[in-house]
């Protein structure tokens, strides 16, 4: 089986689906001839031609708007927003149009499309190349929100997203494009090739939307995470020697609540980890649900490990990023009570 990093896996998902479905059209800033600033769309224009793979004007609003029109026409847009930090000019079209179209037309017009965008910190990208705005999309009924954490999942989830009848916002944790970052920024970079989930089958396969993965089984507590934080969480519980169950959500909406409930009912303790700012982040939604549903199983408050409620400050990358120390403190807290 080929070994791929996350970029290659995402690239492969494009190729596999585009070969099977002529209606898939890919566009975005710099994604054509050049193949995208992160190279996810490399080689696509060459293989599929200019009318299926092309550069777009620097207009995230326009990109989403024409995607709406294309979906209405009947082709399937698979677009890239260069950084999640730049998705806001497209927010109106996403919230008011993409998300609500099926509903407001009683199912007459649907919006199958995928909006891919790299998100998250850990790359010294400063305030406008580090944001994690996923929570802002989970509040919008009609959108699905997906975040992979490995090359295997990246390909399988992206194929699912492309084949899904609903619009999917697909956030790619850019810090782990090239290797599974565990939060120890002072240690040598690990490549994906050493990780089992870098074995990516050729051709078509899916990882279903709405299904979390229990990436580590345990009895002592449940850790909920997604994206880069899955790896940070795994490393942290290993280092603490905790018998933790770690769940990679993979899809934020619709959420795999069963897997979460089953786990928390078993462990009685829950820690949630995300990079995004704390207030009104998706971790709050998870905490709200866990305490609603598992209240009588909980032995301690549900804890949240998050980014701070500040913009992402360039030089303070590692003081902002919810790394091993923040994880450790929170793990101690959730276990102590």
């Amino acid at each position, binding site marked *: 089986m080929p070994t791929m990093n996350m970029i290659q896996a995402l690239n492969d998902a494009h190729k596999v689906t585009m070969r099977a479905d002529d209606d898939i059209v890919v566009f975005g800033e710099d994604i054509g001839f050049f193949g995208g600033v992160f190279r996810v769309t490399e080689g696509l224009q060459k293989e599929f031609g200019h009318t299926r793979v092309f550069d777009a004007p620097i207009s995230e609003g326009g990109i989403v708007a024409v995607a709406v029109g294309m979906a209405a026409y009947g082709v399937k847009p698979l677009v890239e927003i260069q950084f999640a930090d730049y998705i806001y000019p497209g927010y109106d079209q996403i919230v008011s149009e993409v998300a609500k179209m099926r509903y*407001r037309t009683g199912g007459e017009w649907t919006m199958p499309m995928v909006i891919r965008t790299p998100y998250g910190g850990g790359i010294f990208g400063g305030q406008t190349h580090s944001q994690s705005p996923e929570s802002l999309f989970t509040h919008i009924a009609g959108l699905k929100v997906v975040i992979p954490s490995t090359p295997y999942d990246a390909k399988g989830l992206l194929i699912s997203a492309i084949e899904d009848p*609903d619009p999917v916002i697909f956030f790619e944790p850019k810090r782990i494009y090239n290797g599974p970052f565990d939060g120890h920024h002072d240690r040598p970079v690990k490549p994906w090739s050493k990780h089992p989930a870098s074995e990516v089958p050729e051709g078509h396969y899916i990882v279903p939307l709405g299904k979390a993965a229990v990436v580590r089984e345990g009895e002592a507590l449940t850790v909920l995470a997604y994206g880069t934080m899955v790896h940070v969480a795994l490393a942290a519980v290993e280092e603490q020697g905790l018998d933790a169950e770690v769940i990679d959500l993979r899809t934020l909406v619709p959420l795999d609540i069963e897997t979460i409930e089953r786990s928390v009912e078993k462990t009685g303790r829950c820690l949630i980890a995300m990079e995004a700012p704390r207030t009104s982040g998706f971790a709050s939604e998870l905490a709200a649900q866990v305490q609603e549903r598992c209240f009588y199983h909980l032995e301690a408050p549900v804890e949240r490990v998050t980014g701070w409620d500040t913009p992402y400050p360039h030089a303070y990358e590692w003081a902002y990023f919810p790394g091993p120390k923040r994880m450790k403190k929170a793990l101690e807290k959730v276990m102590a009570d």
Partner: protein
Amino acid sequence: MSDKDPSLRRNAPRLALHVPEPPFRPGDTPDFSGLKIPAAGSTSRPDTTAPAAETHPLATQLVRVLGDDHKAVSPWDPKLDADTLRKMLRDMVTVRIFDDRMYRSQRQGKTSFYMKCTGEEAIAIPAQAALDRDDMHFPTYRQQGLLIARGYPLVEMMNQIYSNKGDKLKGRQLPIMYSDKAHGFFSISGNLGTQFPQAVGWAMGAAIKGDSRIAMGWVGDGATAEGDFHSALTFAAVYNVPVVLAVVNNQWAISSFSGIAGGERATFAQRAVGYGIASLRVDGNDALAVYAATKWASERARANNGPTLIEFFTYRAEGHSTSDDPSGYRPTNEAKLWPLGDPIERLKVHLIALGEWDDERHAAMTAECDTAVRAAQKESEKLGILPEQGKDGIETMFDDVYADVPWHLAEQREQALGEANS
């Protein structure tokens, strides 16, 4: 030179903000004698394959076909047969009657909201007549005429307005936010401007697929200020998209006159010049001119000669919507004094001048339309009016958020049903 001491401009005039004001406010007597209205026939007609630049002089003129003598006098004369003209007239009359009935319905408390297009009937209907049956419109709320021109059942429109049991949109949309794929009418959005670049996207899809159907996007003068307007023109220009982009300049956006959208400095048609897009400015109260311009632009698009921006210059003769009372911000008699006239009257008189129509036939036709509208209303009201809605079918509220109902919506549906039955 560099770092010039600001004191050097001690005598510079104080900067001033110019805030546009409409020429007339309540209490004033509107006087449109200053308005330059080119005579019908004074505007040349470039070939549909001409470079965009050749059309740009037309952006500050006004394509008109119906002359003061009610004859068609213009290189733009589309030379339509009398049946077509009569069909357009009938549709226009139907729209006006429909608007009046539904406005009244709202006033009677049968629904929450309504919007008329009075004075603008000569826009959607002839524009639609110029397109093919399967071209796609991305309309605003003032293009109800498109549906009527395409024969969409009046009762369907009313069902939507009443959010009743016959409403195919399942009671989810504000009245007049129609949608019908089969009639080439994209779902109207409450969010102004969004549909304009969507039209471009639809036409990009058609171009990608080598289709021959084109799209037509619609926007109001006020909404041209939205960023989406710029997206539409940018993408249309970059990819040479087969789309017709229409600005309906009815000179008002709720209480703001078109100067607040930039209309004091340039026409809306001129916006196209900066993108290298073909551009036409058209008397929107002249059904023949509207038809001709739309036809021109559609031929241009269909032959891969690129997009066209058309400004239809007209006047919003009534309030913005049932929530609006224009006497608060403009003279009540402005509509009557508006010099480009009543579009229905103009087309009617033209047909009479052609010897193809007369007052009796017009009265009979109007009565027929009225009967049809009333019949539709009766039929629709049998399916319910708004105040009776919202009790049945609560479970449907949770459909169509996604293709399938996910667990959390299923849970909420249970709750909602529980509430309804308690």
